[in-house]
């Protein structure tokens, strides 16, 4: 009897180990896959996946999403040791990491961009900032429609707004850039202090935080990415957007291949080329800012008041604005 029990225990153990082995087989078959680290939003990642799948790369890559600051931190901490083969990230971060570690390969194909970019990355989308509004919540609480970013500092909006923390995501930078270029650093500090006071617990770490809060009706007004509000509005949700009088600022995101010496996955460069050459039309549906020659934006899909920050965007400048923002909390 006891031997029987022992046998059954051993049998159980064997079964479990077999299950492990089968799972091992299932989980480790992707070892040759190209790993893509990305800080991009869902829509952008989905769009890139669609392009790659349509061009025969299905199952040959795997996306790993991060917040901008998390991915930025990982790039700075790990350099060339990073697990990723391709990185999609805010352009200024790619430039800083390249300056620090020389971690990206030169692109092996030509890019036909409107503006000049370094030779080791290719921009694939541009994000534009705007004020987002939940029209239901706005009218239910008798709030006035804001027209500028500065308006968000108005005490009337206390508890009703959501903004992004520049510590967590560079979407916040779009707002801070617009304030600094319009009012200078000193006045920006005052405005920002009031905005943070109004936002209270709704200072989000993720760039898409405010649109989610606006969409869910948790707040009436947010500052976030313009295209998200455009899409929600078109979807029939009670969401609208305002192009602030300070102007809509833009950040580009780019693709770069990590230089791993002999271990560089040759598919990585092919995939980057594929996304740039075949994916832009689809990406423009969500991110309508033209980047490449021959691209034309829908007239109402892009703000008429687009502006560019007077200084070059670098991680150092971001740091400076970050500490300005911290001093306002």
């Amino acid at each position, binding site marked *: 009897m006891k031997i029987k029990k022992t046998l059954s225990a051993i049998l159980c153990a064997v079964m479990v180990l077999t299950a492990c082995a089968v799972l091992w087989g299932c989980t480790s078959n992707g070892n040759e896959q190209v790993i893509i680290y990305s800080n991009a939003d869902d829509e952008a990642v989905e769009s890139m996946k669609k392009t790659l799948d349509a061009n025969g790369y299905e*199952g040959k890559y*795997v996306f790993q999403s991060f917040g901008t600051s998390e991915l930025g931190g990982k790039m700075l901490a790990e350099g060339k040791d990073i697990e990723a083969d391709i990185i999609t990230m805010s352009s200024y971060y790619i430039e800083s990491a390249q300056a620090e570690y020389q971690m990206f390969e030169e692109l092996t194909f030509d890019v036909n961009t409107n503006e000049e970019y370094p030779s080791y990355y290719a921009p694939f989308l541009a994000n534009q900032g705007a004020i987002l509004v939940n029209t239901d919540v706005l009218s239910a609480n008798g709030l006035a429609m804001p027209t500028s970013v500065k308006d968000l500092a108005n005490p009337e909006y206390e508890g009703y707004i959501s903004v992004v923390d520049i510590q967590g995501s560079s979407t916040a930078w779009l707002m801070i850039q617009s304030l600094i270029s319009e009012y200078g650093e000193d006045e920006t500090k005052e405005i920002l202090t009031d905005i943070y006071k109004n936002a209270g617990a709704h200072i989000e770490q*993720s760039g898409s935080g405010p649109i989610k809060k606006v969409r869910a009706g948790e707040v009436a007004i947010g500052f976030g990415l313009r295209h998200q509000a455009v899409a929600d509005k078109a979807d029939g949700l009670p969401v609208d957007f305002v192009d602030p009088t300070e102007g809509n600022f833009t950040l580009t995101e780019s693709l770069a291949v990590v230089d791993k010496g002999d271990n560089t996955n040759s598919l990585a460069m092919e995939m980057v080329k594929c996304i740039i050459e075949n994916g832009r039309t689809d990406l423009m549906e969500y991110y309508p800012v033209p980047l490449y020659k021959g691209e034309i934006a829908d007239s109402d899909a892009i703000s008429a008041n687009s502006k560019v920050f007077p200084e070059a965007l670098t991680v150092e400048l971001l740091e400076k604005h970050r500490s300005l923002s911290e001093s306002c909390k």
Partner: protein
Amino acid sequence: MIKHKVSPQKIIIVFTGILFGIFLLLPMVTILFKSFCEDGNVTFKFYANLFSDGSIVKAFGNSVLVSSVSGVITTVLAFIPAYAINYTNINRKIKKIISTLIMFPMLLPTITYGFAIIYSFGNQGLITKFLGGHFVDIYGMAGLIIGYVIYTLPVSFMLINNTMGYIDKKFMIVSRMMGDSRLKCFLATVITPLISTLAVSFIQSFTLSFTDYGIPAALAGNIELLSTRLYNEMLGSLPDFNTGSAVSIIMLLPSILSIILISVLNKYNIRYSKISVVELSGNRARDIIFGLISAVIILCVLSVFAVIFIVPFVEQWPYRMNFSLEHITEIFSDDSLMSVCRNSLFVALLTSVFGTLIVYGTALVSARRSEHRRYGKLPDIISLITNTIPGMVLGVAYLLCFKGTFMHNTFAILVICNIVHYFSSPYLMMKSSLEKLNAGWETTARLMGDSWIKTVLRIITPNAVSTLFEVFSYFFVNAMVTVSAVIFLASTRTMIVTAKIKELQHFANFNEIFVLSILILITNLAVKGLVRLFAVIQKKKGKSI
């Protein structure tokens, strides 16, 4: 004949020593070293920097405050169902239901709680809508406290319920007969013998809350806690591993203190020489009141989780509330999400298989009488140490210690981390169960000419099977729900569900978060169910022999 061979017990202990030397001692020394050294010189700079701007003191204070409040509330709340089970004449079946349902939160990762709370108590939350108004601001203290209370309630309840079961209820009758008032009787015969357990419950709940990362990840709002600070130092926009190490050491201190306190308090536990079975006095009002309050507590806890089962099945929460399977089919056809589920299952299985083997091996040496028993001190010490180290600290230590080695980004590091993190409880469980078995078996078997291994396999193992399965399910469930340590170790190829939820949180993809949580829940229920089924079969078999 046996002398010239190396005994298997020795092999087990040497193996355990090496394993925990590399995966416990080394990482912890590394982290201590990192927090005090820069370029080979001893420095207090990192601590000084932390304390100079006062923010760490504030974070520490916030953590202490919110964990203490949660500890008190949890202990009071856990007392009520425990009392209902031990001191009332409520129907046995209802008692069973109470004690089972209250454990429910244990089957879900804490990172899920936060989102469940947002979708329950937020402006557009399920409970807010149900009650017709917004009554609590969940981003900040209130949300954190709700989360921590739900998280620590099961542990608190287990502790209090267990001690109550060992209190001799005859003293109540004596007290009443001596003419004590109801209140005095209650204080003298229920509260007094429970005092040290209530304190332990508070400390346990405090420590769990203090070191948890899952709940603040969703709900901290703009309150900085020690755990969120640690995460930001290690994985934030400007990672600083030295300062991160210093924060880890600061986080470790209260844990060590609390473990010392608990072991002191346990000595003051009143032990009754025997427990008499007493017919509790009939008191319908008491039964109904405690039954009802217990039911309300459980309902409150469960109602928070109701959203998990509703939100993903609705087309567009909260605007298009019609039933839809669109999200579910989308998620199940997403191969990357499914592979994350497979990874979690894989890690949990490996953790439980190897964890059980290691726990069994070490407990055999320390619990069974033999000339090797003195080696059993080692697993005892390991169990004590692992018990004091919070998951986040262990995760950070592994990240620092194994970054850039062949262990980095592997499944092995996740499995080992889980085993080390959760070693203590199953080891103590296994040890106490083995100590209860007849101490003479090995001697008898040896006289009969059986080797130790044969004795273990043929005699001890069959008698320890039910505990082995309990240990297995403990490792499994915890490996499925843990987030604090593995958040630092999971990579793209080894991504597991809880770390994925953190990633999905960034994009506020609640449908995916809730469906993945449901999958974790179902898996855990299945494993628990299998283990329970096995225990029942064992019992029946035992009777038939």
